[in-house]
């Protein structure tokens, strides 16, 4: 009997979220009258605390955060000391595997968890008023979003095919429920049905690929798979066959062509608050899934999967940008723009290994991660604006609803302009540096033609982003209802929009954080 009690410390944040989900479930059952407010408040608290705990249990991340905090004026140095002392007495390695190798605690996971937890928290805050207007802000919604976060965290920290799949399913099932949350709306139900059927298909593909990889290597643990392939102990044909299915599953979850068909329909059909949720944090989790499966597990097959990703990313960038031009619905337009952005993330992932030379890997993967993070920031702001313009009984869904926004509220028009410029990749906003770093990685890897295609399509894509700006500034408002929103939404949305501009001027911090996370984890 060689059973070892697992080390729970690296999974402290996950345990916190799981326990709080149960607490919220009980609390909202027994305190019916305040259930919605209670569930919302507790969920937000949990998300913020879980993000804090994720920092505390990841020694590298903690050191990086403390270094930033100690630069702050006033109590900065003291605060950094307190933060460091909280994690004292636990001499952690850079990378810890626990739960019999099912779970891995590293800085990459820590950083992605912090970003995705905060993204969920922001998305909940933006969506609260929207849900309340439509009478669907029931406690179950907040519970589902917490369970979704738990699934994402498990997925981000997975070191084993089974824990990865479990996290993925936990996230996806919660999302299906959230898309169908507005039971009165036939469109939302249809979207949920499409999402569920296609999502189940993709999960099936992924599982099939995993079983083949398991058959070829005899291991489900990602490091075991990597070792087995390294020692050439596995049947190459079966491996590549399995790899194709795994890439298809990952591509579906990221929403890239040709596995993108669900994206526009689901984005359009779901309540905007849920669209905001789907388009933000799960993209980070899907990026983490791609990293864990392809880079941690199947790095030896990089030559094969890089070719597949090249095909996927070129198609996504071309089709995403061209199809977005034809959209009059802004949620659909942003969905297609999301497809092309995910194509860019794949561009970063495919530039890692050139002719067996792995010196580019770190740079390429950190550029992809930086792109994913900045896409999430932009996506939150863009769908946040769509929510801001909606009110009870009115959905600001078409681009025409943005007509003359400048006359109605010039501050929010300016913010939307920042978001659109950033998504189009106009300097000097964060989207520009995200595109630049990915393109640098691609050119360094020698795929100049890929970079040329990506730049050309971005220029074409700029058209539909600029059309929104034109509509806001140069057309008369159709609807002159003043824009009303709670103070915290206004504040956070402004901060979100300004963050895009400020990070665009000073992208170095976030970029080096991403690079450092990968350096400490790979």
């Amino acid at each position, binding site marked *: *009997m060689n059973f070892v009690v697992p080390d729970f410390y690296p999974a402290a944040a996950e345990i916190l979220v799981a326990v709080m989900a*149960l607490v919220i*479930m*009980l609390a909202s*059952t*027994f305190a019916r009258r305040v259930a919605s407010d209670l569930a919302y408040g507790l969920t937000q608290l949990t998300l913020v605390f879980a993000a804090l705990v994720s920092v505390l249990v990841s020694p590298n991340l903690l050191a990086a955060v403390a270094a930033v905090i100690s630069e702050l004026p006033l109590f900065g140095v003291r605060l950094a000391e307190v933060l460091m002392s909280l994690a004292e007495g636990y001499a952690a390695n850079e990378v810890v595997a626990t739960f019999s190798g099912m779970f891995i605690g590293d800085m990459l996971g820590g950083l992605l968890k912090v970003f995705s937890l905060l993204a969920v928290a922001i998305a909940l805050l933006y969506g609260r008023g929207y849900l309340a207007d439509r009478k669907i802000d029931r406690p179950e919604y907040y519970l589902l979003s917490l369970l979704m976060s738990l699934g994402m965290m498990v997925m981000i920290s997975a070191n084993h095919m089974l824990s990865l799949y479990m996290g993925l399913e936990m996230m996806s099932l919660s999302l299906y429920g959230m898309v169908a949350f507005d039971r009165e709306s036939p469109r939302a139900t249809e979207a949920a049905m499409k999402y569920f059927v296609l999502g189940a298909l993709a999960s099936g593909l992924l599982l099939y690929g995993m079983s083949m990889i398991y058959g070829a290597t005899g291991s489900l643990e990602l490091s075991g798979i990597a070792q087995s392939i390294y020692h050439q102990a596995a049947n190459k044909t079966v491996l590549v066959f399995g790899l194709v299915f795994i890439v298809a599953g990952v591509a579906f979850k990221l929403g890239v062509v040709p596995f993108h068909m669900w994206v526009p329909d689901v984005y359009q059909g779901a309540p905007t608050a849920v669209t905001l949720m789907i388009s933000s944090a799960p993209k980070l989790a899907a990026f983490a899934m791609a990293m864990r499966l392809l880079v941690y597990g199947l790095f030896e097959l990089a030559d094969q999967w890089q070719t597949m990703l090249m095909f996927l990313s070129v198609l996504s960038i071309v089709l995403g940008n061209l199809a977005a031009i034809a959209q009059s619905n802004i949620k659909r337009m942003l969905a297609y723009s999301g497809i092309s952005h995910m194509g860019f993330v794949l561009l970063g992932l495919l530039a890692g290994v050139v002719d067996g030379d792995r010196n580019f890997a770190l740079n390429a993967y950190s550029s992809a991660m930086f792109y994913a993070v900045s896409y999430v920031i932009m996506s939150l702001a863009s769908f946040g604006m769509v929510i801001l313009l909606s009110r009870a009984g009115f959905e600001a869904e078409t681009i025409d609803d943005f007509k003359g926004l400048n006359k109605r509220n010039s501050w929010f028009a300016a913010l939307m302009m920042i978001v659109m410029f950033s998504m189009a990749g106009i300097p000097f906003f964060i989207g520009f540096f995200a595109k630049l770093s990915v393109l640098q990685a691609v050119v360094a890897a020698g795929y100049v033609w890929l970079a040329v295609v990506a730049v050309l399509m971005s220029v074409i894509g700029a058209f539909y982003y600029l059309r929104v700006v034109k509509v806001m500034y140069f057309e008369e408002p159709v609807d002159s209802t003043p824009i009303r929103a709670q103070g915290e939404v206004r504040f956070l949305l402004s901060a979100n929009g300004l963050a895009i501009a400020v990070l665009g001027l000073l992208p170095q911090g976030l970029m080096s954080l991403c690079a450092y996370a990968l350096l400490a984890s790979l």
Partner: protein
Amino acid sequence: MLENYFPVLMFILVGLGFGLVPVILGRLVAPNRPGSEKLSPYECGFEAFEDARMKFDVRYYLIAILFILFDLEIAFLFPWATVFQEFIAAGQVAWFVFGSVMVFIAVLVIGYVVEWKNGALDWE
């Protein structure tokens, strides 16, 4: 070699006997007074022959899902129970193994309480 399979043969025989003996006994011993209602095919809760695309109560799903949940709980508990004795014999981690299964049951109990409180178990 072949005698190793003797328990399997016994198992098959006992299984067959278990299934067949009550049926045969029922034929022989029980009173036999058939009627049209008694001979008609029976399905719980539904008319046996009608359009398959009818509406039926969503509670059927609920009961089925609840059944699967607690059925799976048992399916997890059995293998646990078989290895737990070895853990007690080994000593050191028995409390951890016991605790982990208690956490598993506690999670299910919380779900059960929530369902009960929300009226998922009331038929009307």
